[in-house]
């Protein structure tokens, strides 16, 4: 390989940080996704959710438990646990208590009656890991108890029983809910992944214990039969089981708006294959226009003003081909990196976070400035936009990047990164000759990026575009972006 070619390859490959090929730590990944801790000892667990006997799991079993729970935690939008005040999930090898409730056997090795898990309105749940099939059921059951007692992120025991009469009115058909409104295309997609199970009535005997347990049992059935549950709520609302599910769908959304029916449809559709279960749900609803990725903004940004500003522009960020971009014109004009837009006339699939997809054609491309413009075909004229800032940023200014990290490493390994990733950093400096060649962007920043982030906007605290991420320095790991000045020059010309 010639030295020039070697340089070119060196630039092309490490557009983003070197892939971390270490095996993902499921405990950390669980915390990253949910915003809650996954713990395995009594010491780390609030006493209110402890049973008298809670033997610990071995390191191997802890890892297995974490792997199972990570997959099921992704049934809930990223950051949801944190938002609803669920801070701790504890897992043990067993749960035994000398006090029984009439629904469970005595187990000598546990020195008590065998329980599966416990919730208490202290922001914690405990689950016991008896086998791979049971653990997710317990997990969803206990999580729902917390959701049942939460409204708009606030948890209160009063909420827990408040809806019990409405729940009973629904499944006894005194006051039934209307069917879930899913379009024919979504129904067809769900049928493609459904197993044909139907919840005719209540899940089982334990549902008789109380309305709260009935709902939690319904939740664990629903969460492990998502496609079937959504289909029957749409097509067979007259069933008592469907009414239970329809009630749950409202409870989820009351606790946190991100847990919408559209979200659960997206999760169900992502489970079409076993491989897909390991991946995050993709928005596949072109017609519902539900921006399921907006929760990522809330999960990443605590400051309410900044969160509001970024929520305002996140809908304008797009996936374009294998890269990222941002829409700057209501009739569809995507600003992206030149090495993403490639040559004038090239065509791309462009996806918005609300699920809408368009075909785009490159109308301007500047390899020197590494900037491109892609015009969307057959687009409405009211698409969400983000605007260019009126001036360049300063060193130390906070920036937020929203981009599309690759789902595979250059070696083809899954990364488990999610689309519409939100990362916060700051402007770290500028390279001289700000309008010079931008193969290494001349604005330096510290927001996390990965391969696929090329073309993603850097927003200031008002949500205005101040630069466009396009590269990284493999020696220093510093991220680089095309500067505001280059963007304004490019847009003045094209």
């Amino acid at each position, binding site marked *: 390989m010639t030295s020039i070619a070697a340089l070119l390859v060196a630039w092309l490959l490490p557009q983003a940080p070197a892939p971390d090929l270490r095996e993902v730590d499921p405990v950390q990944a669980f915390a990253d996704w949910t915003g809650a801790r996954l713990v395995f000892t009594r010491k780390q667990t609030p006493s209110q959710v402890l049973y008298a006997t809670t033997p610990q799991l071995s390191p191997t079993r802890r890892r297995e438990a974490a792997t199972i729970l990570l997959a099921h935690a992704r049934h809930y939008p990223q950051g949801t646990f944190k938002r609803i005040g669920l801070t701790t999930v504890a897992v043990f090898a067993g749960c035994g208590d000398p006090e029984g409730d009439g629904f469970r056997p005595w187990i000598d090795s546990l020195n008590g009656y065998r329980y599966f898990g416990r919730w208490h309105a202290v922001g914690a749940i405990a689950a016991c890991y008896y086998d791979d099939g049971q653990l997710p059921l317990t997990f969803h059951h206990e999580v729902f108890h917390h959701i049942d007692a939460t409204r708009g992120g606030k948890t209160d025991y009063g909420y827990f029983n408040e809806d019990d009469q409405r729940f009973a009115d629904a499944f006894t058909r005194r006051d039934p809910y209307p069917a879930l409104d899913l379009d024919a295309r979504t129904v067809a997609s769900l049928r493609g992944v459904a197993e044909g199970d139907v919840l005719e009535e209540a899940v089982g005997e334990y549902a008789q214990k109380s309305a709260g347990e009935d709902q939690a049992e319904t939740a664990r059935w629903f969460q492990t039969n998502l496609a079937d549950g959504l289909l029957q709520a749409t097509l067979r609302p007259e069933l008592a089981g469907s009414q239970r599910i329809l009630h749950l769908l409202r409870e989820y959304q009351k606790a946190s708006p991100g847990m919408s029916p559209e979200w659960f449809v997206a999760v169900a559709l992502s489970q079409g294959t076993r491989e897909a279960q390991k991946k995050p749900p993709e928005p596949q609803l072109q017609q519902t226009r539900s921006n399921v990725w907006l929760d990522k903004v809330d999960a990443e940004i605590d400051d309410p003003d900044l969160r509001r500003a970024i929520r305002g522009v996140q809908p304008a960020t797009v996936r374009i081909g294998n890269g990222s971009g941002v829409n700057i*014109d209501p009739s569809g004009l995507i600003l992206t990196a030149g090495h993403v837009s490639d040559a004038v006339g090239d065509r791309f699939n462009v996806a918005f976070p609300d699920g809408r997809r368009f075909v785009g054609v490159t109308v301007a491309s500047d390899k020197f400035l590494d900037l491109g413009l892609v015009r969307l075909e057959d687009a409405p*004229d009211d698409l969400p936009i983000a605007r260019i800032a*009126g*001036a360049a940023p300063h060193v130390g200014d906070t920036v937020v990047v929203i981009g599309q990290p690759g789902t595979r490493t250059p070696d083809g390994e899954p990364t488990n990164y999610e689309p519409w990733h939100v990362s916060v950093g700051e402007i770290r400096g500028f390279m001289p000759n700000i*309008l*010079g*060649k931008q193969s290494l962007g001349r604005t330096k920043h510290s927001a996390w990026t990965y391969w696929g982030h090329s073309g993603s906007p850097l927003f200031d605290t008002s949500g205005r575009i101040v630069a466009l991420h396009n590269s990284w320095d493999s020696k220093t790991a510093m991220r680089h972006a095309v500067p505001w000045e280059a963007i304004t*020059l490019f847009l*003045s010309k094209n």
Partner: protein
Amino acid sequence: MGSHHPVPLQELNFIVFRERSGPLFALAMPAHTTHTRPMSTEAWRWGDMFELDVPLSAEVRDLGEMVELRFAEEPATPLLLAAFSPLPTSGGPEQAVHGALERFALSRGFGRGSGPLRPELSVDPQGVVAGRLAFVTDLAWEVLAIAWNNHLVVAFSAAARPDAGIFDRAEALLASLRPGELIVSGTYLPEAAGDF
């Protein structure tokens, strides 16, 4: 549009920043300083393309194809000046100015549904086309464009309010622009019918 400067311009070193095929532009350089104008100004030249009078108090940041000016009264509100040659359109100076103003507004989020775009255009006897467009999105913007021969200069600024002083300064600055290689209309008289 100002007239040609009466004093011969000093030729200073040109530093070419951008190395690639196509037209190269040079740094804008102080060419002459005068205190006889209403504001204390110095004449700056942009290669052979044009010159203009910049207030002495302005901070000039030369970016190569663009110049950023900041005025002492509004240091947080930059005025950007970009020059292009050849024109980004084959339709001549008038279309270049109109297109530049409209493109600018659309790329700043002023959608076609936001209201009519009404650029103000004027053509002087020497064929120099000047245009102005002001609009408001989440910021107030003003963009000015001047084209002649094969050259286009675009100046723009953004402020929180449409009555910000930066816009008056931008207009004053571009009013002082004196094109180089100005071709008077008499240079290209219409050829006689049938003469080709």
